[in-house]
């Protein structure tokens, strides 16, 4: 059987890639995708722990994370559409009416 560590390390790698993406990309849609990537690495961690502990509640949490991710994606994309109608851009650097 593959050791638990391998799964955890891979999840940590995915999480860091997601974090880098959120921090360096300027396209709001891609930033959102990188957030999905982060959530998925969290899911992988949960499932790995859950399988190795023989404890199902970790998988339960993944179920809820998925639900929330779907809701969040819907709302986030709706906000992006609303912003695009106003400003004709989704580049975060050009979203500077407020000062950050």
């Amino acid at each position, binding site marked *: 059987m593959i050791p638990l560590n391998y799964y955890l390390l891979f999840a940590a790698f995915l999480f860091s890639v997601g974090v880098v993406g959120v921090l360096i990309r300027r396209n709001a849609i891609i930033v959102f995708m990188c957030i999905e990537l982060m959530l998925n690495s969290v899911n992988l961690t949960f499932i790995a722990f859950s399988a190795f502990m023989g404890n199902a509640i970790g998988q339960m949490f993944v179920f809820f994370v998925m639900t929330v991710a779907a809701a969040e994606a819907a709302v986030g994309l709706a906000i992006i*559409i609303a912003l695009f109608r106003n400003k004709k851009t989704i*580049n975060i650097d050009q979203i500077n009416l407020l000062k950050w």
Partner: protein
Amino acid sequence: MTFEEIVFWSLVLVSGFAALMVVISRSPIASALYLILNFFCLAGLYLTLNAQFIAVVHIIVYAGAIMVLFLFVIMLLNLQDETKLRERMNWKSFAAIALSILFLIELFYIFIIKTPTPKIPIHPSSKEIGTVEYLGKILFTEFLFPFELTSILLIAAIIGAVVLAKKKFELTD
């Protein structure tokens, strides 16, 4: 190398590559497609962990619903002017990368050297916990309250998404 190891390593390699490409690709469509590839590999990894139900739901929800929504929005916005999307790296980006790498090293340190040892010993029937039957049972008993709560979350999200995304539309008096 056993069959299990071959499956694991190939899934990890493909999904790691796809994750990197999500961040690197210039076009949002390419990023979205790489993300879908990454999701399929993750579902494979879930299967190697005996989480069948989650693996299937993962494909249905993420690849089937969320990513389709992403692709739909990308097409809807129709970002014609590709030059507008050109992005430049500055010192902030490099600082961000450096910090993330530090974070990653820290996590590696925790997971390799000080492996968190699960308190609860491995359950004899751990193969069964990933089935629909088992998860369904606890979902509708112990986790009934959070499950019902998600219904409020979803209804708020549905109405909110419609309100925010629809075009200006006034009732005629």
